[in-house]
């Protein structure tokens, strides 16, 4: 338990002083300072794009700051690479775990430094005994000879923490450690974090999940738009959520996201989802399971789906699109029940999806813009014999290029040469070429520079005006507020709230996205 005397006297273990990071023209982090003391858990909070990851990369030695100073344990801290940072005593545990799945728990813990016995050969006995003691510290009771691939995500995380401890790490940075865990696993992780705190280890807990942060953190540092939004201290009890939300949001609706006037959406219900449920897929154990989703989407409407990472928003999109299997529930399109089993089925029915991960799921990096544009509508740009009607195809691309102001050199140019914003416009054009009834866009402006974001929003509004029903998934609240006619919030695979866009505020949405249903009920 953190008490006043535990915090006050100890000098900081880590002090970040006025750190700034600039990338070609963009300032990702501007004059940020924070401190972590031994034996405390510091929460690092902020919305997507607030600069958390940039700060983590600097602290873990992935890249140096442009200016500013970092002091660790009284000494200037200038790691040249992640190994350096580790050796100096700062270990970062990322969402994507870095264990080698085919090796055993013991081998992973002692990787690169196996204990040697006689003749300089590896002493497997000593390795087993030692690793058993090490994993016991994080409350793991399993055979160190188990291959890591047989462990759950939570167990793997604990192994990583154990490894960090065995490296005599004094600061453990955890990047969204709870996003892939179940409720009980989260509780267990929290209790282990508490135990480590007692042992004098400093922990930096990077998270979106406000109530988890509130429950365990002694102090919090909040970032917003790459700047320090403020520090929060525990004051007798846990830090209250409204205080955190205020710091995280803390700005008037940004001028970048000019709010459109309320549009009159009188369309009929296009897409209707009732009682949608999925089950855990052994092939994708980290995917969020959807539970009892009810949703209506009207023609000409932009429905914003707001949710944090791990809320199930992407899974919802994929389920409707036929990319993931549905366990129960019905989907109707224009009053007819549909059951798309593959994306091809969904597309044939008039549904389009602009996926979240553009690089891996949307673009054909090495192929020309022309193919990237027409790939979902090859049937429309070809004749009965299967030959491409290239002239028609090029004309169509040219007209979308103009309409969406896509900046490109030629239709043959590989799409990877375009900026993120222009790539996304090509993907939007891909779906427009099919004249979809329903268009689902998942994080439409991720990796899109600020100027182009507003353009993408404008395009979405225009499409809705043409009668397309648009479901826009986003974790950026200003974006959701800027374009949505109606907003639903999701958390842990459920829909937690709904409101007209005009009534929504970041505070209201954040509360619905971050709260557990149980807490919601008691408020």
């Amino acid at each position: 338990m953190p008490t006043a005397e535990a915090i006050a006297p100890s000098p900081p273990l880590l002090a970040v002083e006025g750190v700034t990071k600039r990338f070609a023209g963009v300032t990702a982090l501007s004059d940020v300072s924070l401190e972590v003391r031994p034996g405390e858990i510091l929460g690092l909070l902020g919305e997507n794009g607030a600069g958390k990851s940039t700060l983590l990369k600097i602290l873990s030695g992935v890249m140096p700051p442009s200016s500013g100073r970092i002091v660790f344990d009284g000494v200037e801290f200038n790691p040249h690479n992640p190994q350096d940072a580790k050796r100096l005593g700062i270990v970062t545990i990322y969402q994507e775990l870095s264990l080698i799945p085919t090796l055993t728990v013991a081998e992973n813990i002692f990787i690169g430094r196996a204990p040697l016995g006689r003749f300089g050969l590896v002493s497997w006995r000593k390795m087993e005994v030692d690793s058993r003691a090490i994993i016991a510290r994080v409350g793991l009771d399993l055979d160190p000879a188990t291959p890591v691939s047989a462990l759950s995500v939570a167990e793997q995380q604990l192994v990583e923490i154990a490894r960090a401890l065995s490296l005599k790490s004094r600061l453990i940075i955890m990047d969204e450690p709870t996003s892939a865990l179940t409720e009980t696993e989260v509780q267990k992780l929290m209790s282990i974090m508490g135990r480590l705190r007692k042992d004098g280890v400093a922990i930096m807990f990077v998270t979106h999940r406000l109530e988890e942060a509130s429950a365990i953190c002694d102090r919090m540092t909040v970032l917003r738009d790459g700047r320090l939004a403020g520090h929060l201290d525990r004051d007798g009890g846990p830090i209250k959520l409204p205080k955190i939300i205020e710091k995280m949001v803390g700005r008037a609706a940004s001028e970048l996201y000019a709010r459109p006037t309320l549009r009159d959406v009188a369309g009929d219900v296009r897409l209707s989802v009732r009682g949608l449920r999925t089950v855990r897929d052994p092939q994708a154990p980290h995917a969020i399971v959807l539970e009892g989703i009810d949703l209506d989407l009207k023609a000409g409407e932009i429905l914003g789906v707001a949710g944090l990472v791990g809320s199930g928003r992407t899974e919802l999109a994929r389920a409707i699109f036929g990319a993931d299997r549905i366990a129960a529930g019905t989907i109707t399109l224009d009053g007819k029940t549909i059951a798309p089993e593959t994306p091809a089925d969904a597309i044939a029915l008039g549904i389009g999806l602009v996926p979240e991960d553009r690089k891996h799921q949307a673009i054909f990096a090495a192929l020309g813009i022309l193919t990237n544009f027409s790939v979902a509508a090859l049937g429309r740009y070809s004749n009965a014999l299967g030959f491409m009607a290239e002239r028609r195809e090029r004309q169509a691309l040219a007209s979308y290029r103009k309409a969406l102001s896509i900046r490109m050199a030629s239709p043959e140019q590989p799409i990877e040469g375009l900026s993120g914003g222009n790539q996304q416009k090509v993907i939007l054009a891909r779906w427009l070429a099919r004249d979809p009834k329903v268009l689902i866009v998942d994080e439409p402006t991720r990796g899109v520079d600020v100027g182009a974001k507003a353009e993408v929003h404008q395009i979405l509004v225009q499409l809705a005006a043409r009668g397309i029903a648009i479901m826009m998934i986003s974790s950026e609240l200003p974006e959701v507020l800027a374009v949505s006619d109606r907003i639903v919030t999701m958390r842990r695979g459920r829909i937690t709230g709904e409101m007209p866009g005009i009534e929504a505020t970041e505070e209201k949405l954040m509360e619905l996205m971050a709260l557990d249903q149980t807490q919601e009920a008691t408020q």
Partner: protein
Amino acid sequence: MTSTTEQSERSGINVARLLMSFGPLMFLALLIVVFTVLKPSFIDPINIFNIMRQISITGLIALGMTFVILTAGIDLSVGSLLAFCGMVAAVVAKGGTANTLSLSTSGAQGFGWFAALLAAVVVGALAGGVQGFAITRLKVPPFVVTLGGLTVFRGLTLTISNGGPISGFDASMRWFGTGLIGPVPVPAIIFAAAAILCHIVLRYTRYGRAVYAVGGNAEAARLSGLRVDRILISVYVIVGFFAGLAAFVLSARLNSSEAVAGIGYELTVISAVVIGGTSLFGGIGSVGGTVVGAALIGVLQNGLQFNNVSSYTQSIVIGLILILAVAFDRWLKSRVRR
């Protein structure tokens, strides 16, 4: 976010791509010049037609292999499949497994050349389809499936032929291997026609676009509504078809179907495709490149032989060229990606 730096490299990318498409062609021209200087008779039409005949067999398979490699797949079974299809063609042509080495032009025997051709390509396509099914539905990597196929088809060949050759076809069948139309060997014409057809399919049809898309990014292709599994199966059907066609031509040329035919062909075929600039990672490549790649290997083999370089040394040179070609491919990629 860092779009400005990407944009500025665009001109560099174009140069790289230009090299990627013309690099092998320039190298081919250079080889021809060098061999002609060394021995002017190298450029004689007789020798040129000779080279064309030589490359037509592996060239035909390489056309099919181009489809496979464009999807980031591989087919190691083509050499064995060629032997198997050749044996099937022989059995059909002769109506049995009797080994009568006759060069007589007396009337038709067995079921005739057309049935033999049909049998060879159908068996080849079916075999490819089965492998494609194993790759897509059983989720076994193409390398493993076709490595298994390599052994299976060789075993099947030895089983039906009892280890020996089946020889002696009638003249109408032999014409496909040894005949001439004007001065041009028939196998070369078949290869050229097939190459043009493949080029048209890949470059101008919906199916061709889909092949590139699946190879470029299978997940994006699936989310764009392409039936990825069907396309993957189809490319193995295509390479199987061409292995069957090549088998028919080879048997016709040798007047015999050998149980040991085609050993090691998979390597020559893959080399031709890769030297021609088709990326083993899928999505990039062309039929034109494969034709140039096949010609390059043919010219190299013929030219070295012409200058009395031993076949041992030929192997070394061809192997090194293959590695250099892939290294070049890698280097171009690293420039493009940066």
